[in-house]
């Protein structure tokens, strides 16, 4: 039966994706929720919580407030706290019950903005989607917010091409330096990184994004912001992560798009045929779409073996390669795993991996949280340690 998870974990939720994406930007995120969301997010999904202050709170919704539609308490609590703590912006997200009762968070956001003078918005989360959508919504909203105030700059004239990196969160990249490695690689190749959405950049740096010539989208979560910037500022984007052989491909795509705007997905094959599901020695890779497809493309090039991606969280078909697929539920995944010879996945998938299938652990913070954090490799630096043939 679908939606059952007898043995495996669940992915981080949309609300937590929002918090993760906005964490470093000096804003306030309020999860409209009774209890538990905040400790879950800050325990399992937020490695920055101990060292870096961020205004992430829950509203403490009660049954009576929910039934009586008492949104005034939410508005009052946010207003009072915001006036004291002076966040750069306020984002309100709903968990399941506010979504169920149709809580008008847009109205609440307008009231808070009126009361505080601080830009306030809400996002259509409900705790019933996964983090990838939350990251997408949050970064897209930030892009829309910033675009209101900042016009497009003149085209690049200097030696260094200017670039934004979109879609960085610990939920996909952990805190193992992968984000820095990506930016370091860009700089080594003549790019000047204007902003990192949203690990390692301030809101002010994000506000400089209009100066970029191209955007690099490193997760589905960054795609919404990329589209906004393309539409409003005319900045093209390239999707992909420079793992292994993807480095060369990405550079090829990034170069022309700096001069001739056309947004593309760098890991999409230009000549290869779709995966044949009957292929023997098939390698399965399960994870976020852009991360996994980039890694799969790099592995295929390295090992000359087909690597099929299964994306269990939100994405778009356009971000998947021919033959890749979307599946989330344990009962859908099990038969797929049975047909593979190698499975690359988070360790919490191991219980449903058949014993005759080689299991390669690739911990993913969005799935197993902090449990295997210390084992999450920075694949920008250690791609060649991921050996599927041995």
């Amino acid at each position, binding site marked *: 039966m679908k939606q059952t998870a007898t043995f495996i974990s669940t992915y981080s939720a*949309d609300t937590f994706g929002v918090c993760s994406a906005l964490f470093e930007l000096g804003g306030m995120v309020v999860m409209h929720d*009774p209890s538990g969301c905040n400790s879950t997010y800050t325990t399992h999904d937020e490695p920055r919580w101990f060292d870096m202050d961020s205004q992430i709170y829950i509203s403490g919704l009660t049954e009576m407030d929910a039934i009586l539609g008492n949104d005034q308490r939410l508005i009052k609590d946010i207003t009072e706290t915001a006036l004291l703590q002076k966040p750069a912006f306020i984002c309100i997200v709903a968990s399941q019950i506010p979504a169920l009762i149709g809580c008008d968070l847009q109205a609440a956001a307008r009231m808070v903005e009126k009361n505080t003078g601080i830009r306030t918005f809400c996002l259509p989360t409900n705790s019933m989607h996964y983090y990838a959508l939350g990251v997408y919504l949050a970064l897209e909203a930030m892009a829309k917010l910033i675009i209101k105030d900042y016009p497009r700059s003149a085209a690049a004239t200097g030696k260094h091409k200017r670039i934004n990196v979109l879609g960085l969160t610990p939920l996909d990249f952990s805190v193992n330096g992968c984000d820095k490695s990506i930016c370091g690689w860009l700089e080594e190749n003549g790019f000047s990184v204007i902003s990192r959405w949203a690990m390692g950049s301030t809101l002010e740096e994000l506000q400089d994004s209009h100066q970029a010539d191209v955007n690099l989208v490193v997760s589905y979560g960054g795609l919404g912001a990329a589209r906004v910037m393309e539409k409003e500022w005319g900045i093209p984007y390239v999707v992909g992560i420079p793992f292994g052989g993807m480095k060369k491909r990405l550079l090829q795509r990034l170069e022309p798009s700096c001069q001739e705007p056309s947004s593309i997905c760098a890991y999409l094959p230009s000549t290869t045929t779709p995966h044949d599901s009957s292929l023997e020695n098939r390698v399965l890779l399960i994870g976020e779409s852009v991360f996994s497809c980039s890694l799969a493309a790099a592995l295929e090039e390295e090992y000359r073996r087909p690597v099929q991606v299964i994306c269990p969280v939100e994405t778009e078909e356009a971000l998947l390669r021919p033959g890749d697929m979307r599946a989330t539920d344990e009962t859908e995944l099990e038969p797929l795993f049975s047909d593979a010879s190698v499975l690359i996945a988070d360790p919490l998938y191991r219980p449903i991996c058949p014993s005759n299938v080689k299991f390669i652990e690739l911990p993913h913070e969005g799935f197993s949280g902090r449990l295997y954090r210390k084992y999450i490799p920075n694949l920008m630096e250690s791609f060649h340690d991921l050996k599927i043939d041995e």
Partner: protein
Amino acid sequence: MLQKIHGQPSRAVVKLRDASCPAPFPHTLEYSSPARGTWNIVHTGMLLPESHQIYICAAGCLRGVVLTAAEMGAMHRFSALEFREKDMVNTDNETFIIEGITTILHRLPKLPRAVLVFTACVHHFLGCNLRYVYDTLHRRFPKVEFAECIMDPIRQTQGITPEERERREIYRLLKKAPLDEKSINTIGSNLPLDKDCDLMKLLASFGFSLHDLTGCQSYEEFQAMAKSRLNLYWNPFTHLAAKDLKERLGQEFLYLPQCYDSESILRQLRQIATTLSIPLPDFQAKQQAASDALREAQEILGATPIAIDLSFTFRPFNLARVLCQYGFRVVQVFSDVVSREDEEDFRWLQEHHGDIDLIATKNADMRLFNRASREKLLALGQKAAYFNDTPYFVNLIEGGGLWGFHGLCRLTRLMVEAFHTPKDMRSLIQQKGLGGPCCL
């Protein structure tokens, strides 16, 4: 970027003399500190041997409980049914739960003896017919017991909390049995009682056998708790379970709130002796030993400031009072509420030590709390340690299984040890469910 704002929080700190009772702080947005040692409903449920837990809720709610199980290394005892958006309108949720649990139980390598089923807030709001659900499950799985738990924090301020309900439902699995005059339970605690404590020794000396869920290795051993004549408890989430056991099984109960003052300890020992119709031994030597231990510890700690938090004990004000009476310099109590049991001690402290800072732990302003310690501070509890950024702390939760005069002696030893030996606060406090299994 908002890096470490060191502003004085305005709403989260109040001098004890100015604090109101039982709710010293106004409601506002809530913050979650990185101290994670307290137990949640997953940890407590795992105490039941040969049981399995199934949660039916949205991804956001599932996330915390599934990863609790994973961090305990207990994923083989945990399953979930994920409630999705379409299930709010297009799903017969009774059927969804029944068929989902059926699928899960059929997929397990072996049927568990008991299943703790956790429905959620959403089922309450949707008016899900849980009676029908459980009746059907009982018919389908006659050899499996179902504990009807609910993870519904939305109702916890006005109704039964998930922790209270879970305890009641676990002990509801006990089947009526003839009562054994020489058998006694301690119920509701997450942590085992110190084997050398006054209570254990008293009961053992009169030939009573003591049973506790924390020590049960099998479901049969758990069921043996049904034979006990008396339930003792100090965890305040256990009232409902105790009353239910009295009604169903005829087991008497004694609520023995945690306490650190001699008078209360002696009163509780007398209560136990009277209930069991046994003579009360002379505890004067033990009382003196505890008093001496407190004095000696005070001499060592001198004027070292001490902070106590509500995760360390259910009675932070009682502990603060005792420490103050022995000359310790208590400067902070971290507690969002004042419990009924603690009110008298709270009032005493207001009158005699009104300068103590009463500090909230969940108030949003705690995000801005200045954690930089100005002098060496001893913290009793993880939250007090975190908020003071001190490596000198006693790492216990919920009283740590300490009890009576012997418990006081151990506590003082732990305080002195913590005063002399710094700990890795950062890593210790971030582990969930202190005292339980942890794979981190």
